[in-house]
């Protein structure tokens, strides 16, 4: 597997790895192709009437690319408004890593889906309150 420098950097020293205590939303997604699992935790605050991702952490059971995409995703959306975060897709994730081997693109889809699932979970919780 020919991974770029940036992928290996994020993989060896991932950012925002771990869990959040009392998260506002958790997204748990699995990769049907290879059987991997990614959990995304988010914490939301309101800033000038807008919902902002104040903190985000991840846990991933997966390959180099799955871990690197989890890590770079957290960088991409931390501090962003919900609106902005929802626009981040798997291509942005792959681009931020300087590209992924074609066979590893599906791992970046997991990152996009993980974030979307966490936001969905947050919205669901809001409704319950």
């Amino acid at each position: 597997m020919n991974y770029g420098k940036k992928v290996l950097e994020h993989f060896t020293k991932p950012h925002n790895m771990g869990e959040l205590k009392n998260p506002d939303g958790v997204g748990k997604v699995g990769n049907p192709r290879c059987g991997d699992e990614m959990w995304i935790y988010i914490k939301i605050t309101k800033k000038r009437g807008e919902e902002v991702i104040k903190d985000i952490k991840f846990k991933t059971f997966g390959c180099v690319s799955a871990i690197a995409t989890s890590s770079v995703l957290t960088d991409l959306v931390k501090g962003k408004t919900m609106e902005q975060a929802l626009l981040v897709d798997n291509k942005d994730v792959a681009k931020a890593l300087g590209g992924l081997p074609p066979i590893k693109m599906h791992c970046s889809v997991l990152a996009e889906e993980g974030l979307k699932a966490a936001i969905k979970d947050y919205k669901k919780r809001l409704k319950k309150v």
Partner: protein
Amino acid sequence: MKAYFDHGATTPIDPEVLKAMTPFLKQRFGNAASLHKLGREASEAVENSREAIAKFIGAKPEEIVFTSGGTESNNFAIKGIAFAKKKGHLIVSKIEHDCVLNSARWLEKQGFEVTYLSVDDEGFVSPEELRKAIQDDTFLVSVMHANNEIGTIQPLKEISKVCREKGVLLHSDACQSLTKVSVNIDDLGVDLMTINSHKIYGPKGVGALYIRKGVKIDPYFSGGGHENGKRSGTLNVPGIIGFGKSVQINHKVGHVKKLRNIFMKGVEKRISDVKLNGPRGDKRLANNANYSFKYIEGEGLLFRLDSHGIAVSTASACASNTLEPSHVLTSIGLPHEIAHGAIRFTFGKDNTLQEVEYVLDKLEKEVKELRKMSPYKRGWK
């Protein structure tokens, strides 16, 4: 520090082997088929190599055909025997190397019938199951001597007894077992046997097929009739010289086994939630250890070890082009998530105790780190 633990993939060329080869890459460059002095010299050196290899496996020199390696020898054996038979049924085990399995699948497309024989949870073929699978029109059984991923050494003697009784030819791929355990063709009872050079400190791109005298086989390469018409093509003289030398060097199997055992003890003592894939004891290749580290994925662990200069291999789904775990791991019944964390460590004669301690330290550290990252660190869901 650098530590190479992937000798099952390939080995470095031994200095003695290189020394034997070098003249044939330089001033003694002759074509072994040429009649002049340079050609005769090359031919003589090739025949010495053939004799050394034949002697090493208990065969006659004329029963050895040189090829371009394990892949060609396996293709040649299986397709060559099938085409000499024209039709019928063959049996291969489910954990054969891809070059055997895909040769069998190709033959199926040409109208042959194939049975893919199951193995047990340690990778063993059952001679009794084999007996049941043999049909009236079965002409060939192919069961590898030792498995490249999990090191299982097959009971070839018992398997060959069944084949003999039933009058079926037996081929065995011995690429992994050559020099690690005895591969005497009469003890094992094989009719054809694949061996190659780059797993035993020889050069890449050279191997041989042992064909018992009297066995009818169609050539796989048609051409100028080299190798008694069995395999055409100008002989890879330096490669063959290197191969011949590589069976004669000291392979230090005792040393390799000692290191492998220290490694296994270390892994099982220092790291929790690991599973050894393949058997324990004498029925496992002395240079092979294959562990699943639960809750983490193999490609990730491989790259973490690589960042410390440690080379290993993995058959995890994420590391394969098909995104499926290897057919060997699924054939021994490993659940997907356990196959996911499988790493193979294969030791060699030049490894040291210091390197084993180094890999144990890094392995313990990186497994811990990756488990911290895993949602499953407290067990599966």
